């Protein structure tokens, strides 16, 4: 067993599995898909040691529904996959959101659309942050950019899922899944949350129902309004964002996940050359740091959004900036991971 504070070298997706177990996850169901099958293998090996349940499901659809079942009983549960598999899970995620059931879903995304490839990509931003499945709902979306942050956000994911009774997506590229980095783990946590809503039999209380069917329009609207109220609270309380060198920056780079990591390295270099470039890294993609970016727009000439996609988060940045200053975009697709030098060139072009 890995001691608290002991530095180990670990793959991102395996580190997530270890962190999930430490965060109290006791149920995992999943279906193998590159580049994150090692997460399922880790769970298969380790979860039973803690009294947890691992199931290799017949499909991604079954996996998310097994998680739904476990969540119904109040068990901390998760599944993980990569882009095509996450598409299959959308039905279940919509039901989880509608039934207000907590669950953690990891997407180590890869090149798409379609079968695409297995190289790192962040082109599932729209799917993750705008709902993904049917109906008016939102996932909480966390975007780590290192193995260490993956561990920290995995703990946070389980806490937020329980606090808001909402699915939480951890969205990071397949690069984080496969990359090994030094990482330290937090202590094991015993789940403390009371879950009076969980179905564990009608003993000493009236029988209860978990459902998402409301045939009367006004009744369903009432349920939808309650969900919207919750998303509003999440927007107010849970924004997480990291910023560097915004003071006097003529250009502000906005990037998340893998792109943010490369961007941070590039920005560090241009700062050393004395160039006024800042960096904003959204850690929560929903809730998006809209107000933070709006405020930053007051003190800069221009934004540059860097993504491993054809341009998805850039739309949210534009919404935040509201035309106050130009928002430019540079993206690589298909699994291409740009080098810091490439970003350096793009940044300098815009100064």
């Amino acid at each position, binding site marked *: 067993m890995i001691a608290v504070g002991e530095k180990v070298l670990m793959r991102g997706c395996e580190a997530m599995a270890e962190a999930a177990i430490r965060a109290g996850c*006791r*149920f995992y*169901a999943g279906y193998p898909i590159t580049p994150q099958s090692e997460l399922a293998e880790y769970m298969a090996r380790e979860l039973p040691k803690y009294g947890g*349940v691992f*199931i290799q*499901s*017949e*499909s991604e*659809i*079954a*996996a998310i*529904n*097994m*998680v*739904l*079942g*476990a*969540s*119904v*009983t109040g*068990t901390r*549960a998760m599944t993980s996959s990569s882009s095509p598999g996450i598409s299959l899970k959308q*039905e*279940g995620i919509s*039901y989880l959101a509608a*039934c207000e059931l907590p669950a953690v879903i990891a997407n180590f995304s890869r090149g798409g659309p379609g079968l695409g490839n297995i190289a790192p990509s962040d082109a599932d931003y729209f799917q993750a942050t705008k709902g993904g499945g049917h109906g008016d709902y939102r996932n909480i979306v966390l975007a780590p950019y290192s193995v260490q942050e993956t561990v920290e956000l995995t703990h946070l994911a389980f806490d937020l899922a329980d606090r808001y009774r909402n699915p939480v997506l951890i969205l990071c590229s397949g690069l984080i899944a496969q990359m090994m980095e030094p990482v330290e783990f937090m202590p094991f946590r015993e789940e403390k949350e009371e879950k009076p809503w969980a*179905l*564990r*039999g*009608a*003993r*000493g209380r009236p*029988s*209860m*129902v*978990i*459902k*998402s*069917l409301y045939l009367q329009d006004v009744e369903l609207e009432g349920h939808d309004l309650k969900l919207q109220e919750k998303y509003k609270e999440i927007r107010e309380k849970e924004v997480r964002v990291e910023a560097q060198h915004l003071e006097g920056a003529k250009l502000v780079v906005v990037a998340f996940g893998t792109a943010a990591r490369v961007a941070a390295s590039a920005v560090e270099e241009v700062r050393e050359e004395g160039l006024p470039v800042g960096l904003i890294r959204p850690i929560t993609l929903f809730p998006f740091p809209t107000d933070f970016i709006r405020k930053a727009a007051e003190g800069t000439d221009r934004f540059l959004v860097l993504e491993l996609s054809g341009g998805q988060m850039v739309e949210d940045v534009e919404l935040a900036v509201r035309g106050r200053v130009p928002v430019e975009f540079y993206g690589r697709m298909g699994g291409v991971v740009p080098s810091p030098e490439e970003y350096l060139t793009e940044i300098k072009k815009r100064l």
Partner: protein
Amino acid sequence: MKLVFDRPRSMKDKPMHFCPGCSHGIVHRLVAEAIDALGLRERTVAVAPVGCAVFMYEYMDFDVTEAPHGRSPAVATGIKRSRPDLFVFTYQGDGDIGAIGLAEIISAANRGENFSVVFVNNTVYGMTGGQMAPTTLLGQRTTTTPRGREAKTEGHPLKMAELISGLEAPYYVARVAVDSPAHIARARKAILRAFQIQVEEKGFSFVEVLGACPLNWGLSPAEAIKRVQEELIPCYPLEIFKDKEQAVM
């Protein structure tokens, strides 16, 4: 005065919404009776399907969760594996179990999950208005087989009980009907047996119940019962296809 008829404890005192002659009411009652008989009400979590029986939770006085269409066996797997102390069953229709959720039921049965399945086969999609089900009989007219089901294009009626009993893991697989008092008595026994098997942690149990859907069949309730007897039962024989205990004896 002697009480000869009462509502099972596991049912709420509430009139049902089902159409006249629909079999769901009877099957609901048989399920509730079995849960009462085994004293399971306070540790039951049932999985309601998408379809006519989705409102099960309106009538049952135990915990119920919904599942997406066809996914009940996966949801039940999640419930039972995370809390093996709970009593778990799915209640499914023919479209739910035999079409959209075929992968989930076969896989759960093949894993030998220790929960029970009550499957109501009325050979038609009820809630959506009478479309073809995987169990629709050959020649049967539905809104999507206006000329009658043809083997050549729509395939043959799917025999779920036979399919499930062909797997190694399931412990108990039976088909019953609720068309007559004698058959209802046998159905009651089968459901009780299926639930008992779960309580004894013996594994997967499956009861297919042939039922009537007079509205979508375009028949009166009396005619519908006749159809069950004359058309359904010859295609779907009433049998205990598998009982591992009987096999040992």
